[in-house]
């Protein structure tokens, strides 16, 4: 057990060490404060937060519907919700193009009637990130809602609380750990989104070029820029992990 286990550990850790070791520390401040890098960072934060907000707005209710089995065919619906989680992101991008592209199923209607286009816009980046990240929130939160016994909501109802009050004052606070974990996972996934974004929204600096896309682009021109930007994303990931450590992702020993 020990040897293969350690192989796994080394395999997972060495690339991260290599990234840090190869970081051009002298040029680092200059690289990450360059207008291109700052623009990509700004765009990444903006779109990932927007995607997380959208996911929260629509995903939290969906998670509740799945957990309480309000709709028929809950099993099938859950499977449908999980699909984007398993789909190769580039396939998600193609699927989004077919749905929301100018000639897509829904996109054609939106373009013809309202002049709305998603591909190659910042909004497209948000859509792509939401598509791939929302399932993380739904699945995590559904588990939270499921493990919450119905009797708390029943008790609140007999005490005269409206369904809205029950949801915001009883249900949601009681699943706060799952909600926070789900939101963070969702946000981290949105922040790292690459395949669906580049397929659906393209790679235009200042408009759709998020950090991962900037890293990819820089790799072809200046390797040290790619490494420096990667390090920023690594720091963010580790930051998320540290933020959640001891609260929601700890080993359950009790």
């Amino acid at each position, binding site marked *: 057990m020990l040897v293969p286990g350690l192989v796994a550990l080394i395999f997972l850790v060495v690339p991260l060490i290599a990234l840090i070791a190869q970081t051009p520390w002298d040029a680092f401040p200059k690289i990450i404060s360059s207008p291109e890098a700052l623009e990509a960072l700004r765009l990444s934060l903006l779109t990932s937060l927007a995607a997380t907000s959208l996911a929260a707005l629509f995903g939290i209710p969906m998670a509740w519907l799945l957990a309480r089995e309000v709709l028929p065919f809950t099993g099938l619906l859950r499977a449908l919700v999980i699909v984007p989680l398993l789909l190769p992101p580039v396939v998600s991008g193609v699927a989004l193009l077919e749905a929301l592209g100018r000639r897509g199923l829904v996109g054609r209607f939106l373009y013809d009637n309202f002049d709305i286009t998603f591909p190659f816009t910042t909004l497209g980046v948000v859509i792509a990130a939401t598509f791939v990240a929302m399932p993380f929130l739904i699945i995590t939160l559904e588990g939270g809602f499921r493990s919450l016994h119905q009797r708390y909501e*029943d008790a609140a109802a007999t005490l005269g609380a409206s369904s809205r009050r029950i949801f915001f004052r009883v249900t949601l606070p009681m699943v706060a750990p799952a909600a926070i974990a789900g939101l963070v996972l969702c946000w981290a996934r949105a922040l790292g989104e690459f395949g669906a974004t580049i397929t659906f929204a393209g790679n235009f600096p200042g408009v759709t070029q998020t950090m991962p896309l900037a890293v990819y682009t820089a790799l072809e021109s200046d390797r040290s820029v790619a490494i420096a930007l990667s390090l920023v994303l690594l720091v963010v990931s580790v930051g998320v992990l540290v933020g959640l450590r001891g609260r929601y992702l700890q080993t359950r020993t009790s």
Partner: protein
Amino acid sequence: MKITSNFTATRGDFTLIIDTIVSSGTVTAVLGPNGSGKSTLLRVLAGLQKIDSGKINFGKRVMNDTPSIHVPPQDRSVGVVFQDYALFPHMSIMENIAFGPRSLGASRKDAHAKAHSHMDLLGISEIADRKPSHISGGQAQRVALARALATEPDVLLLDEPLAALDALTRESVRTELARHIKAFEGCVVFVTHDPVDAMILADRVIVLEDGAITQEGTPGELAARPATDYVAALMGVNLIRGSAHDGVLHVDGGGILQIPQQQLEGEVLAVLRPEAITLHVNKPEGSARNVWQGTVRAITQMHDRIRVSIEASPSVVATITHSSLADLKLSVGTLVWVSAKTLTIEAYSK
């Protein structure tokens, strides 16, 4: 106010059929074994579960009338004490109790004032700022009661209010609960599987078995004249079925008993208390007119007495003292004579 209910409800493949009236100012116990539908009945009255057919009225207000009327729990003016209390773990005790008044539109100040007065009433003011995870089981029960009463409901429903407590706490909480629910002016319905709860707390008992009411009456009536084997077992008495004629009971399944109710005719039930039965090694001579022989099937310790189950016509359970057990040298399989004085038997029509 009266609750009149006549309905059927299903849960899974289980059907509950209810037709009864509950009056305000009385405490009604719903007594039944696990899975008899007690909790379903309570959920239906609370509006947490829909009925399949029938009608439920709280006084003049129609709560259910199939197919179209189902008043939601929010609008029923019911207070419910749930089995595990279901206190909101993220709120303090005070917030738990103020939640109801707040939900019904009271200002924060009024809701808090109401919560405080109910905490005073139940003697839980000192734990107002604690979270439910930091109070004892007995305290949680009082908080649950205070929370249910704080909305000033017309109907108070309690689901196994004492089941979550350990034996020691149970006694004191039961006494206190009796005081509070007797002071409550509306209808009180509580569910229990413990006959002691029903005997002590209730004015009236509804027995529920397999989703149907099998007996209704005062605790005294249930003890004196149980209608089913379940009730008889809870009351700790032998229930014998048979047909009566001229002061003789012909027991179903064989055997004859002399009964004091000379005028009783037809299908009857008879109660024979285990402590009124005497056991003998040899056929007894004496005044007891009911004497029959049987085989000991089980001997169990029960507090300061011994319970002896005897297979005979009719089969009975007798309670004897330890010294009698020693004198009789009983063991499983022993042949034994059973006697019971006629006057100790109470027979009654079904």
